[in-house]
């Protein structure tokens, strides 16, 4: 065993839970993360929390990025966190983007969503945060 295992690229699952129908924002973020050297598993639209967590575990990602516009975040995000916990996979960190009111954002952060990006966020900011969340073993 090497003392510090060689870390590969950061792996991120990008998914869109809920029923809203377009994923332009999620795709833009996916591309930015790719351009920053990350491996982005794009799971697509209308994913249930169960599907998201199942994919994240199979893909052994470091991060899950959830994108949502439909307003169902207070139901769906905590469910993702709960499932991760149930699977003993809370090492996987979750961030989110979309239209989320400040009050909800505060509550979600308390529940364990690590970062929340509103419509005005810059891609640089998202990439930097993703890097930081993935931890020091990834460059």
């Amino acid at each position, binding site marked *: *065993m*090497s003392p510090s*295992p*060689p*870390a*590969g*690229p950061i*792996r991120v699952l990008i998914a869109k839970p809920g029923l809203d129908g377009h994923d332009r924002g999620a795709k833009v973020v*996916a*591309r930015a*993360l*790719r*351009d*920053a*050297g*990350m*491996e*982005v*598993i*794009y*799971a*697509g639209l209308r994913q*249930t929390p*169960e*599907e998201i967590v*199942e*994919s994240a*575990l*199979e*893909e*052994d990602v470091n991060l899950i990025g959830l994108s949502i516009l439909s307003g169902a975040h207070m139901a769906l995000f905590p469910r993702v966190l709960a499932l991760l916990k149930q*699977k*003993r*996979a809370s090492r996987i960190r979750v961030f989110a983007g979309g239209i989320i009111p400040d009050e909800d954002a505060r509550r979600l952060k308390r529940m364990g969503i690590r970062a929340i990006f509103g419509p005005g966020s810059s891609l640089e900011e998202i990439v930097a945060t993703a890097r930081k969340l993935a931890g020091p073993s990834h460059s």
Partner: protein
Amino acid sequence: MSRRPVPPLPPVARRVLRGDRQALAQLITQVENRDPAALPSVRALYPHSGHATVVGVTGPLGVGKSSLLNLLLAHLRVQGKRVGIVAVDPSSPFSGGSILGDRIRLERPPGDDGVFIRSMAARGHSGGVALATRETVRLLDAFGMDVILVETVGSGQADVEIREVASTSVVVVVPHLGDEIQSLKAGLFEIADVFCVNKSDLPGADSAARYLTEMTQLVPEKGAWRPVVVLTSTTIPSGVSDLWDAVLRHEAFLDANGSRRVRARRQLTDEILGLVRERVDARLTSVLAQEPDLQALLDRVVAREIDPYSAADRLLAEVRREP
């Protein structure tokens, strides 16, 4: 050679054999990262592999490979087969990152643990099949998957590597072949055990199939496998059971004439030689890094005091020395 006692299974290997999906997923990551920590488990799991049918599905961008995998997956799950999927996509040559989007097409009932899907970036290895693909397939095999489907993007040139992993290679094309014909001739044609003309709901499918069938008639040797051509559509689902039957026919052919063993031995030879080359290479790199007289040696070659062959002999002697 005397048989050595079997060492106890490393904990991770034991977890994989017990069906622990997270242990499998994490071991695959280590393999992808070429983390030496994976080796004990990888080695211990090798004897547990060798049971799965490994099918490569390759073809140009966007021809419907993942959509076909989705239908094959359903077809096989109905038969009770446990299915592993490895979907390989290219990495960006600029950033090294990638977007792996094949999962979008793959649906399955929630909680179905007879399926394991893994996306993989080629990480700069040419030929579509990443170095780690072979080992990942083997891990899925040891995990107990009956069928393993490997999707790779094939441009026709460098994708022969899929043959080093799969026992049957399916090449997917679409009706309006156009420019792809040339690349088919160049590369994909040689690797196809089965041709799948997908999007057969679009015009031109029949003539494409006819063209390919004619091409397969040109296969020279007697007794050689003649690629089967099937028509499929995933939008108006059809032909998927024909596709799987064609795969099984090829698998039966491999068994009937003994070529399965020949193929496996060739694959293993390539793999083992690759491992040896890699280690010799690594050793050479470290010798070069440590060789204080390398510049001096070069100077002597430049000055014609010694010839390049003698210089190579000297370096080789260093490589051979135990580190």
